[in-house]
C-alpha cells in the first residue's frame, strides 16, 4: 500500500493546477470574458485531458480514475469554466461500448442522477446535459437492447440553460426528442455501467474536493486581510474555529476521494461504486459546509454577486446533484449494506 502520487501523477497535478490558475477567472467579472474562457477551453483540449478515458486501442483508457480525478480537482480549485467531467464521462462510456466518442456529452435523467435510458426511440421527459462543451450538438443516451443497453444519441439544443453553476454549461434536451442508435455500439453490461457510475462518482467528488480547497484558500486569505475592531478577523477564535473545521473537512474529503478515484479501475465495479458513494456523501456534505462557512466569513460582501465565493457554492451544488446528492448516496448505501428495501434499484 502506497497512496502517494506517482511522479507522473504529481507532475499532472502540478501542471493542471498551474493551467487552471493562469486561465481561470480570477474574479466574478472575468467569467464574462469570452476570450479568456476560450483560451482556457482550448488549453484543456490541447493538454489531451478530455481524452483521458478514451480507448487507446486495446479497450483500456489512457489514464486511470486517479489521473482524471487529479485534473477535475485542479480545475475545480480555481472554478475553471472549461468542460472536463462531461466530455470525459462521454469518452469513458463510448470506450465501454466499443465505439469512438463523436459527441463528447451524455444526457442524464431529469434528476441528473443517472444516464438517461430511452426506450421506443423518443424521449418522454426533459433530459439534462451537464458540463457541455460550447459546440455540443449531440449527447449519448442508453437504449435497452438484448437484456443490456446500447448507445444512442439525441440532439442537443445550442442554447445554454440558465443554470446555477456559472462555470459549466447545462443544456436541456426537450421531451419528444428522437433517439438515433449508434451504429456498431456494443452491449453495455451492468458491470460496464457500474464502472462508469463509479467514475462519475469519483469525478464529481474530486470536483468537490478541489473547490473546497479553492474556496478555503480564498477565505483564509480574506480573514487575514479584513480588519474589524482594529485587527484581522482571522485573529478571532470564533472565525478561526470555523476555518479550522473547514480545513479538516478538506483533508477528510481528499482521503476518501482519492480512494474512490483509485477504486474506479482497481476494484470490482460494485466495490468501486460503494467507495464512490461514500466519498460522494462525505465530500458533498463537506463542500456544502465549507462553502457556507466561506460565505459567512466574508460577511456582507460574501452575500454579493461580486464576491467569488458564491461561484464555488454554485459549482458545489451542481457537483453534489450530479450522480446523486449525499442523501441519495446514503439511501443507496442503506440498500446495499443494510438490506433496506425502499424501491431503489
Amino acid at each position: 500500500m502506497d497512496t502517494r502520487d506517482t511522479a507522473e501523477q504529481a507532475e499532472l497535478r502540478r501542471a493542471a493546477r498551474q493551467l487552471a490558475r493562469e486561465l481561470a477567472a480570477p474574479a466574478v467579472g472575468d467569467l464574462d470574458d469570452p476570450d479568456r474562457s476560450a483560451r482556457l477551453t482550448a488549453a484543456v483540449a490541447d493538454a489531451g485531458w478530455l481524452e483521458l478515458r478514451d480507448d487507446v486501442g486495446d479497450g483500456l483508457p489512457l489514464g486511470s480514475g486517479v489521473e482524471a480525478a487529479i485534473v477535475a480537482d485542479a480545475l475545480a480549485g480555481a472554478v475553471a469554466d472549461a468542460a472536463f467531467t462531461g466530455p470525459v464521462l462521454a469518452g469513458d462510456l463510448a470506450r465501454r461500448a466499443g465505439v469512438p466518442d463523436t459527441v463528447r456529452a451524455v444526457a442524464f435523467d431529469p434528476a441528473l442522477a443517472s444516464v438517461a435510458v430511452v426506450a421506443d426511440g423518443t424521449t418522454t421527459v426533459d433530459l439534462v446535459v451537464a458540463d457541455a462543451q460550447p459546440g455540443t450538438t449531440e449527447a449519448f443516451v442508453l437504449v435497452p437492447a438484448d437484456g443490456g443497453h446500447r448507445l444512442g444519441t439525441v440532439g442537443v439544443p445550442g442554447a445554454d440553460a440558465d443554470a446555477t453553476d456559472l462555470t459549466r454549461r447545462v443544456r436541456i434536451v426537450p421531451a419528444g426528442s428522437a433517439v438515433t442508435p449508434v451504429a456498431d455500439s456494443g452491449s453495455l453490461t451492468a458491470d460496464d455501467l457500474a464502472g462508469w457510475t463509479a467514475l462519475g462518482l469519483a469525478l464529481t467528488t474530486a470536483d468537490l474536493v478541489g473547490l473546497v480547497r479553492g474556496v478555503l484558500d480564498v477565505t483564509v486569505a480574506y480573514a487575514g486581510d479584513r480588519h474589524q475592531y482594529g485587527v484581522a478577523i482571522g485573529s478571532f477564535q470564533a472565525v478561526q474555529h470555523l476555518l479550522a473545521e473547514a480545513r479538516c473537512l478538506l483533508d477528510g474529503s481528499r482521503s476518501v476521494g482519492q480512494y474512490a478515484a483509485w477504486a474506479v479501475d482497481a476494484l470490482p465495479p460494485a466495490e468501486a461504486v460503494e467507495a464512490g458513494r461514500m466519498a460522494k456523501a462525505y465530500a458533498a456534505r463537506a463542500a456544502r459546509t465549507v462553502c457556507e462557512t466561506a460565505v459567512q466569513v466574508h460577511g456582507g460582501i460574501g452575500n454579493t454577486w461580486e464576491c467569488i465565493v458564491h461561484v464555488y457554492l454554485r459549482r458545489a451544488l451542481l457537483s453534489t446533484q450530479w450522480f446523486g446528492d449525499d442523501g441519495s448516496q446514503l439511501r443507496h448505501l442503506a440498500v446495499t449494506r443494510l438490506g433496506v428495501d425502499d424501491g431503489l434499484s
Partner: protein
Amino acid sequence: MDFHDSPAEAEFRASLRAWLVDNNPGLPASSTDDEYWERAAEWHTALYGAGFFGLSWPKRYGGHELPTVFDVILDDELADAGAPPRPSLGYLVQGISVHGSEAIKDRFLPGLIDGSERWCQGFSEPDAGSDLAALRTTAVRDGDEFVIHGHKIWTSYSDVAEWCLLLARTDPDVPKHKGLSAFAVRMDQPGIEQRPLKMINGITTEFGQVLFDGARVAADDMIGEPGEGWRLAMTIVSHEREPGELGYVSRYNKTVTDLEKRVRANPAAYRPDQHEAVVWARTQVEMLRKHVSRRLSERLDGIDHGPDGSIDKLLMTWVEQSVGAAALAVSGAAAVTDTEDVALKTYLYSRAQSVMGGTSQVQKNIIATRILGLPA
C-alpha cells in the same frame, strides 16, 4: 497511488488473519466494559508474542521495524475478526524514544512494548488541563532521588500500572514551560494513593486520580534532561492525537459493523433516519481508514508529525461521535431503559473523544494558527 497490498503486506495480512481465527479473545469493547481492562494485559501479551505488535518500532526494543502502513493492516484485520484493538501506547513509546537516553530506552522500551510492564501517564492535574504547563506537582532533589508531591487526574489504567510517566515541576524559578521534567516513577511504593474515577458511562477501571505524597524516584530515571519535560509532553500529545498511532480505527470499525448486523437482521424495524445514521457512521469510518492510509503513506517520504495531528484528531473525534450517535439512534428505547445498554455506553463514551488528548477547541486553535497561518 495504490491501496493494494504489496506481496510482503499480503503475506503479513494472511498470517495475521489465520492467527486471529484461533486467538481472538472475544473481549467486549474497551470503551464500554470493565472486563476489557481486566484482560487487556493478556491480549497485549498474546498479540506481541505472536509477532503482531510493535510493528514499526526498532528490533532492538522488541519491535519489527516494518513500515507504519502495516499498522493499517493490523487495524483492519482486528476489526474484521471482531477482535479487540491493539494496545494504545504508541505515544508513550514515541515520547521515551525521542527524549530518553540510550540507558533509559534499553531499560524501559522492551517491557513497555512486550507488555510485561504496564504504564500510565501522569500529565493532567485538577488545575492544569488544557493549560498543561500550569501543573503544580513538584519533584524535589534529595540525594540520588527526587521526592514527589502533587495530584494527577485522568490517569488511565493507573491502578494496574507498574510505571508512571510523570511530568513534574523541578524548577519553580523559571517560566512555566521551562521548569518541567519527566520521570519514570514506580507505582508500587508508599506515598502513592489511587482514587478511581467512574466515567459517565459507568466504566470504573479506565480513569483514575493519583495522589503523590512523598513518593520517590531515582534521579537516573529522569527521561530527558532537566527542563525537557514540556518538549517530551508535546511529543507525546502530538502522537496521542493520531488515529494511526492509537489504533482506534478498528474499534470504530467493529462497532459500526455490529450496528450494521443488527439493522440488517430486520431493516424494516428501523426508520429511514436510523438507517441513515448507520450508513453515515460507516462512511465516516471508511473515511478515517483511508485517511490513516494516506497519512502513513506520507511517512514513507519522511514527513513527520507536525500540527497535522490536530486535523487527524478532529477527524477521529467526528468519526467516533458519529458512531456514538448511530449507536444511540439504533438503540432507541433501550438506551433509556437499560443503563447497561452497550449502545448507550458507546454513545456516552464517545463524548470524551473531543476532550481527551487535547480538546477540540485546542486542536482548532492549533490548526488555525499553525496550519492556516491565521494570526494568533
